[in-house]
């Protein structure tokens, strides 16, 4: 088994394959953006505001009966929770009502025999504010990362990394839109940590690219990109695999609350690996990395 990972000298023409990747990425991006524009996101209560109650009954729940009892609620949605038919998830939008009164009304309507596992009420102002702040935090995080890369490397690297990151995030959010998976605060947490983790692979390859640019002063950029990607290929795959294991486990046994987070992380890890090989690296060939690199030999380098 160990042999499998031992074969190390890859000579894959990644830069040659990149044009197919561009097409694939373009398609995925278009699908994501179109879906976001037409279907939007299935916002959870964190962003939408409203009331969400997870309750369990002593007896099996008759959905129709509950629906009738709660028919006074606006935008009522009922969902069965668990497998024994005794759990229920109630979501609704209160209309300018005081949350206390609303809860009492719901509890009265359901009657005795229910226990409440989780009650969440989010005011509409809070939700809207959170939406704005999440977007802002995501954009700022991406920019902060790009600026850091710019300082540590050169600006073309920052652009490449930023484009690859934005690509991954748009596709992951697009996936949530396409399949209407609930999009809540924990998903945003996933997206943001993704932004941080995603560029690790890219950084390893960029680090190697920088080294090779200095080492082989006569080779073409394209050649060096291929070489660097090949040299770092095994660690790109291995590091992504360990993280993928963990997020897959989270997805399957981490419980319902972490589902959105795990989906974001699984997709992000896969697309992050793909984009650091097929976008972040090939994109560098459209910039004059060589001259930028030479003019700024004073780039801090921890190796020395």
């Amino acid at each position, binding site marked *: *088994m*160990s042999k499998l990972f*031992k074969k*190390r000298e890859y000579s894959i023409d990644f830069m040659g394959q990149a044009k197919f990747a561009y097409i694939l990425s373009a398609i995925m991006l278009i699908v994501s953006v179109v879906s976001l524009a037409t279907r939007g996101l299935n916002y959870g209560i964190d962003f939408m505001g409203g009331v969400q109650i997870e309750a369990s009954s002593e007896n099996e729940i008759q959905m129709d009966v509950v629906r009738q009892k709660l028919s006074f609620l606006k935008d009522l949605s009922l969902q069965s929770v668990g497998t024994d038919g005794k759990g229920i998830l109630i979501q609704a939008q209160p209309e300018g009502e*005081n949350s*206390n009164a609303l809860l*009492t009304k719901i509890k009265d309507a359901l009657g005795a025999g229910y226990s*409440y*596992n*989780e*009650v*969440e*009420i989010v*005011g509409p102002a809070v939700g809207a504010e959170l939406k704005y702040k*999440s977007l802002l*935090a*995501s954009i700022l*995080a991406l920019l*902060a*990362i790009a600026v*850091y*890369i710019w300082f540590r490397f050169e600006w073309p690297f920052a652009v490449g990394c930023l484009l690859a990151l934005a690509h991954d995030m748009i596709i992951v959010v697009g996936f949530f839109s396409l399949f209407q998976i609930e999009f809540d*605060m*924990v998903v*945003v*947490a996933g997206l*943001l*940590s993704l*932004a*941080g*983790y995603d*560029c*690790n692979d890219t*950084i*390893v390859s960029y*680090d190697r690219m920088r080294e090779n640019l200095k080492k082989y002063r006569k080779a073409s950029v394209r050649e060096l990109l291929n070489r660097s990607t090949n*040299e*770092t290929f*095994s660690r790109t795959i*291995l*590091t992504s*695999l*360990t*993280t993928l*294991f*963990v*997020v897959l*486990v*989270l997805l399957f*046994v*981490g*419980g319902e*609350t*972490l589902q959105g*987070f*795990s989906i974001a*992380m699984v997709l992000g890890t896969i697309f992050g690996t793909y984009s650091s090989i097929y976008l972040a690296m090939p994109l560098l060939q459209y910039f004059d990395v060589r001259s930028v690199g030479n003019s700024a030999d004073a780039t801090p*380098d*921890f*190796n020395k």
Partner: protein
Amino acid sequence: MFGYSKIRVVIVGIVLAVGLFFALPNFLPKEMYNQVPSSVKSWWKPVTLGLDLQGGSYLVMEVDTNTLIHEKLESLADLTRSALREGKIRFSGLKTENDTMTVKVLNAAQLNEAREIIRKQESVGLDISAEGTTLSVKYTADALSALKNQAVQQSLEIVRKRIDELGTKEPLIQQQGEDRIVIQLPGVQDPAEIKALMGKTAKMTFHLVDEETTPQMAQMGKISADSMLMTGEDTGYIVLKRSVVVGGESLEDSRGTYDENGRPAVSFSFKSAGAKKFGNATRDNVGRRLAIVLDGKVISAPTINSPITGGKGIITGNFTVQTANDLALLLRSGALPAPLLVAEERVVGAGLGEDSIKAGTTACWIGLALVFAFMIIVYGWFGVVADLVLIANGIMLLALLSLLGATLTLPGLAGIALTVGMAVDANIIIFERMKEEQMHGITVPKDVLTRGFAGSFSAILDGQLTTLFAALFLFWLGSGPVRGFGVTLGLGLASTMFAAICVSKLILMAWMNVKNPKEIKF
């Protein structure tokens, strides 16, 4: 020692030992930890569980800005009324509506003078515009935000007192943003009572009754500008003097009690200044009625039989034992500047919390096991080293979380799992670099090792730092669970840096010194 400076070995060793010591409470069985003296428990403790893991209530209360502004305008109107009169400016139609106070100045020549007088009545900015001889007064945007902030500051104190009075265990009360207060109540499954208490300002004032004006006269508009028509459950409509004899801010204490007929009542005592005012007022007005007004409603209006000089008294009214006790609690904790409304509420049942912990920790363990196995399959003995490093990393992370009193939430558990997956990345990068150095003809084990570490350090650091940026923004963005995730992620990065660089190098160096291998084989 091990070709590694002695002092560094000692430092790494000490850090690990300290880490282990602080992580330990998390692994001790409950019964054992309970026997630890409480003075030690205060700093040697397991990670605090978030509300989503231990069950409890999470409330975000928002200052009711409309009411706040309205109240402020009302008192501005009162001040304006007497100030204009003092300044001999004739006016009519002084009233407040929504966020605006309007007053018609009868003599147009006095318009500017009136404007200045009004401006002097308020310390924050006023926006005064004139239409004909009618002045419209509003708070400026800056003033509004200052008022809100001030209200939140005052409310925090009072909310804390009210919740402490209720005897809730380990509540966490913090300001959030400009006009919100976050209240976390571990273990509280039904926050209805607490929300009800937060919704009341409990502003109490004593007013003399205007005996010359009957409610009927007042309703027909025959009422002096110094009096006001009020209503109450016990008293019905009643006309009171506007001026406050003494207010709730002068109260020292208040308790639930019983009156001479054995009915529930509320006792109160004033601080010395308040007691004096109250004593004077009651002495000068024996035989007249004194009304107690709470949040705009008259509770009762008893007749003053004799001067009350001790600063103590009781309020009777339509109370039950519960409402009397509640009112006493509200009075002694002080009045809120405005009611607090629920902006966000999350209640997690204890059972659900337990399930979440189970699912989260199971995921962590399975993930850990998979990563362990994978590393050994890929790297053999070096994989074992990476796994040891991972254990050290986990211990350090737990120690940091425990030591800093960070709150572990369900997303935080996910953060730990994620750290596990990402932490070995550093070792993979180092090992792959070592393999590469070997391929480039470097065979002396020590050189391979040093070059492997040196060649990977910059990439590892950069990778960790970018993730740290994300964690920082998460911390800024999130409240409650998500913030916990940011904290775990950030601390995880710190412990990963330490473990992957220092600990793994130390283990490998030690191994080389002991075994002295001719070459490194993966």
